[in-house]
C-alpha cells in the first residue's frame, strides 16, 4: 500500500514536470521537429508524437481521418457528411499539393451531398457546411492563390464553380458540350488560371480565375484524371488515365510541352517542394517565394505502382511497387515519405465484415536511405479515402493544457458551431442474398421497386425515373465476378445518388450481395448516380441518373427540378446549421 502510494507520488511529480516542460517549451516547439524519428522498420519505433499529420477525406465513411506521419497511427475521425473527396488547407496553394497551410481551417468537399465543409484545425471540429447550388455535383475543390475562394468541378453537370469562402456566394459556369465531366483541378500558382481535367472531353480546361470564365481547352490523352501544378507554377502535369501517359502543359504558353509514357492507369501526381535555399519548405517559417521541386510521383492504378518523374528531364526515373491499385497519392511535408492511397487490399488484412478496408502504404522516398523505395508502413483504412494532404504538426497547437484559457482558440462574443452531419439517415437499409430479379422499375404494394445491376463499369438500368412523392425501394446487385480489366476478385460496388439523396443511398454491395435502401423521393430533379467505391480504373465513368419528375411539371432535367429545396439537404444537419451558397453572376 505504502509502496503504491509512493509510486503514485512519483508519477504525479513526473506528470507535473512534463506539463511544466510542455508549457515552457511552447515558444520553441514550433521550431523543433522531434529528432527521434527512425524510419528504419524495426517494429520498435512507435512514436507518440508525430512531426506531421495527414488529413484525409475518407470517402464513403463521410469523415476526415487524421493520421500521424511517420507513425501512421490514426488519431481521430471528424464527421463531415456523406462521401468526401478533396481536402484543402486554408492559407495559400503555394508549394506542392500540401499547399501553404495557415493552420486555421481545412476545407473538404462532399461529393455525396454537394457541400464544402470547413473544419477548424485548432478545435478539430466541423464548423461550417456550405451547401453548393444545384444541380452541380462537386467532385473536387482547389484554393485560389489569395486563399479567399474555392474553385470546384461539377462532374455531374459539366459545370465549374467559384465560391467565396467568407460568404459562401458561388458563381457557376457551364463547360459544354455534353458529355462533359470536369473532375480534378488545380490553380496556377500566380493566381491567373484554374486548370481542370474533363474525362469525357479528354481535355484540360483553362479558366481565368478572376473574372471566372472559360478560356480554352487543351487536348490531352484519353480520360485525364489528376491535373497538378508544380511548385514553380510553370507546368501543369496531367495523368492521362486511359493513355498510360503524362501530358505536361507549359503554363506560360498554355500548350502541351511534352507527353511522357508513364504507366498503366495513371491517376494522380504529387511533387516534393524545397524553399529558396534548397531546404525543406516549412510553411509559416520559410518564404513561399522561389519554391522549387525535383520529382513528381505519379500513382498508377492498373500497374500497381508509383512512378517517379524527374521534373527537369521530364522522364520517368523509377518505379515503386504498391499494394494494390494506388488511387490518390500524398507526400509528407518534409519530402521524405510518399503515401500511396491504395484502393484494394486484395488478400491483405483480417476481414471485419463484407466490406474490406482499403489501405495507406507509406514508402521511403529518401534516396540516401537504405530502405529507399521500400514500404515502411501499411495500414488498413476505413471508408474509401480520396485525397490526403500533410501539414506540419507544429501548425496545430495543444489547447488542452490551459492554453485555451488565454484565448485564441474560439472567437470572443460568439457561439462557434460544432456540426456533426448525419452520415446515413432518412432511409431503411437491408442486405439480402444476390437478387436474380430483372433490372427495371416495378410497382409492388404501393412501393416503386427499382432493381439495379452494378457491374464494371456501369449500372443497368442507367436512367431511373420515378415520380415525386413515390416511396422507392432500390435493390443494387453486384453481378461482377471480379473487377473489370484489373480482375481484383474482391470488388465491391457502390450506389450513391448525389445531393438530397446521398444520405439515403450510399449503398455498398460486395459480390453475392444485394444492398437495399428505402426512402421517399420527395425532391424533384435530375441527380447523378455514382459508384462511391473505387471499383476499378473506369470507376468514375460508372454513372447513372435518377430523375424525380414532378407530375405537375415537365420531365426533370438539369433545368427543371426542385433545386432550391435540394440545396437545403433535408436530414443532413439541424435547421440553421447549413450555409446555403447564394448563386451570383460573378465573383
Amino acid at each position, binding site marked *: 500500500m505504502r509502496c503504491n502510494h509512493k509510486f503514485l507520488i512519483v508519477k504525479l511529480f513526473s506528470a507535473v514536470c512534463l506539463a511544466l516542460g510542455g508549457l515552457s517549451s511552447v515558444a520553441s516547439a514550433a521550431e523543433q521537429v522531434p529528432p527521434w524519428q527512425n524510419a528504419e522498420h524495426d517494429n520498435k519505433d512507435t512514436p507518440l508524437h508525430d512531426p506531421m499529420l495527414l488529413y484525409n477525406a475518407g470517402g464513403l465513411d463521410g469523415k476526415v481521418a487524421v493520421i500521424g506521419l511517420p507513425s501512421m497511427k490514426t488519431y481521430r475521425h471528424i464527421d463531415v457528411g456523406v462521401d468526401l473527396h478533396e481536402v484543402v488547407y486554408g492559407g495559400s496553394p503555394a508549394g506542392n499539393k500540401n499547399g501553404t497551410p495557415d493552420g486555421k481551417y481545412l476545407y473538404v468537399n462532399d461529393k455525396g451531398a454537394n457541400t464544402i465543409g470547413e473544419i477548424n484545425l485548432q478545435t478539430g471540429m466541423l464548423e461550417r457546411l456550405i451547401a453548393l447550388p444545384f444541380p452541380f455535383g462537386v467532385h473536387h475543390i482547389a484554393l485560389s492563390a489569395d486563399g479567399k475562394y474555392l474553385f470546384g468541378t461539377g462532374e455531374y453537370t459539366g459545370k465549374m464553380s467559384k465560391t467565396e469562402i467568407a460568404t459562401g456566394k458561388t458563381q457557376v459556369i457551364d463547360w459544354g458540350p455534353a458529355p462533359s465531366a470536369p473532375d480534378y483541378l488545380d490553380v496556377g500558382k500566380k493566381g491567373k488560371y484554374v486548370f481542370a481535367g474533363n474525362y469525357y472531353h479528354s481535355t484540360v480546361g483553362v479558366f481565368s480565375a478572376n473574372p471566372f470564365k472559360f478560356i480554352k481547352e487543351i487536348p490531352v490523352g484519353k480520360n485525364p484524371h489528376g491535373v497538378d501544378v508544380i511548385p514553380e507554377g510553370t507546368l501543369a502535369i496531367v495523368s492521362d488515365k486511359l493513355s498510360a501517359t503524362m501530358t505536361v502543359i507549359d503554363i506560360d504558353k498554355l500548350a502541351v510541352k511534352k507527353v511522357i509514357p508513364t504507366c498503366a492507369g495513371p491517376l494522380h501526381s504529387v511533387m516534393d517542394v524545397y524553399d529558396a535555399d534548397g531546404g525543406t519548405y516549412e510553411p509559416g517559417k520559410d518564404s513561399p517565394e522561389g519554391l522549387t521541386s525535383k520529382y513528381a510521383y505519379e500513382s498508377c492504378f492498373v500497374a500497381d505502382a508509383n512512378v517517379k518523374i524527374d521534373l527537369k528531364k521530364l522522364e520517368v526515373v523509377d518505379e515503386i511497387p504498391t499494394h494494390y491499385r494506388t488511387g490518390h497519392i500524398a507526400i509528407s511535408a518534409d519530402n521524405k515519405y510518399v503515401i500511396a492511397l491504395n484502393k484494394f487490399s486484395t488478400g491483405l488484412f483480417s476481414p471485419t465484415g463484407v466490406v474490406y478496408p482499403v489501405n495507406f502504404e507509406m514508402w521511403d522516398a529518401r534516396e540516401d536511405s537504405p530502405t529507399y523505395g521500400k514500404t515502411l508502413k501499411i495500414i488498413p483504412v476505413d471508408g474509401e479515402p480520396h485525397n490526403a494532404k500533410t501539414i506540419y504538426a507544429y501548425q496545430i497547437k495543444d489547447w488542452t493544457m490551459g492554453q485555451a484559457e488565454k484565448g485564441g482558440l474560439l472567437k470572443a462574443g460568439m457561439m462557434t458551431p460544432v456540426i456533426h452531419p448525419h452520415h446515413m439517415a432518412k432511409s431503411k437499409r437491408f442486405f439480402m442474398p444476390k437478387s436474380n430479379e430483372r433490372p427495371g422499375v416495378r410497382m409492388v404494394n404501393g412501393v416503386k421497386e427499382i432493381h439495379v445491376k452494378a457491374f464494371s463499369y456501369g449500372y443497368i438500368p442507367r436512367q431511373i425515373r420515378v*415520380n415525386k412523392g413515390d416511396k422507392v425501394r432500390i435493390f443494387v446487385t453486384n453481378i461482377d465476378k*471480379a473487377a473489370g480489366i484489373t480482375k481484383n476478385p474482391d470488388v465491391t460496388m457502390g450506389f450513391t445518388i448525389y445531393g438530397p439523396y446521398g444520405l439515403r443511398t450510399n449503398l455498398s454491395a460486395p459480390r453475392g450481395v444485394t444492398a437495399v435502401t428505402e426512402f421517399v423521393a420527395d425532391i424533384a430533379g435530375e441527380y447523378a448516380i455514382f459508384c462511391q467505391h473505387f471499383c476499378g480504373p473506369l470507376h468514375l465513368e460508372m454513372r447513372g441518373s435518377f430523375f424525380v419528375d414532378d407530375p405537375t411539371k415537365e420531365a426533370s432535367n438539369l433545368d427543371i427540378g426542385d433545386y432550391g429545396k435540394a440545396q437545403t439537404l433535408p436530414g443532413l444537419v439541424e435547421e440553421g446549421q447549413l450555409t446555403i451558397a447564394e448563386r451570383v453572376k460573378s465573383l
Partner: protein
Amino acid sequence: MKKQNLKICVIAMASLVAVWAGSSASAAGKKRCTAQGVKVECPTQSDAVLERARESYGKEAMDMAHGKAGSTYGIAPFDYLTGVGKRTDKTTLTEGESGYGGSAGGGTGKTELWDRVKAPAKGEAIYDQWTNNWSPTFKETLVPGADPNQGKQWYYFYCIACHGWMLQGDGPVAIDLDPRPRTLVAGRYMNKKTNLELFTVIKGGGEAVSLSSSMPSWGNYLQDQDIWNVVAWIRAMQDVKSPRDLDEYLNPKSTFKPIAGDVNPLNAADNEDFMEAQELIEAEIAGRGEEMQGGKYVEGGLRERPQDVAKEVKLGN
C-alpha cells in the same frame, strides 16, 4: 430503320417503367431478333458457355488473390520491406498461366492473347498496356471516317464485361443478363444492321431500338466520333474466327460489306434520320439542360474529326 419507328422507340425510353424487351425471352434460340425486318435467331452464346466463361474468369481472379498464376496478390508473397510479391518482368504471366481460357466452348472465354496466339514480335502490333493485350492494328476501315483502332480501345474499356474480349457475347457478367448479350461477330445478323441502328443502340441503349434495356446508353460516356469508331471496330470483326496463327490474328478478314446509302460519320450531318435520332436520344439521356447540347466534337484523347480519320485510315473493300 424508319424514322417513325425510331421516334416511338426513343420515346418509349421516357416511360417510367423500364421496358424489359421480350419479357419471356430466356431461351437464346428463340426467333425474337430481327435483321432488316426478318425474324432471326438471336446470336447469343449458350448458358453453358456463359457459365463457363464466368466461372473461369472468377477462377483467374481468385488465383490472383492467392498468389497463383504469376500474380502477386494475397498475403503469402507479400513482403512489405522488400517489395517481394510484386509482379515484375520475371513473374509476368506467361502462356498457360491465365486461368480464364480453360476448355473454351463456342465462345473464346479468353482474356489474354497468349491464350489465343503467341505474342507478336516487337513492332508487329501495339501492346496495349492498359488491357494487357496484344491486338491487331487496322490499316483499313469499313466505315468511312471512323477508325477501328480507336474503337477497339473504347470497346476494351466499356464493352468487354458483357460482350467479351473477342466480341463473342461471352463476357463474365453475360450470364447475369436476360436476354443475353449479342455475339457481335455474327455476320448473318450484324451485317444486316445499318450503321444508324448500331450507332443508335450504342448511344441511346437497347431501348432506343426496342431491344433489351440491359444494353445501357453510352451517349453520356462517349462522344459521337468515339461511337462511330466502335461501330468501325465491330464492322471489322464480322465472322472473324479464332485465329490459327499470328498473321490471321493481326489481319482479321471481316465479311461485312457496306450497305448502300447507309449513314456514316462523313455524311451524318446531312442525314435527316440520323440527326433526328440524335435529337431524341439526347433529350432522354442525362447530363444536359438547355445549355448543354451534346454530341459535338471536342479535340482530345487522340480524337480526330471524321474527315481527318478518313485521310489516315483508308476505306477497305
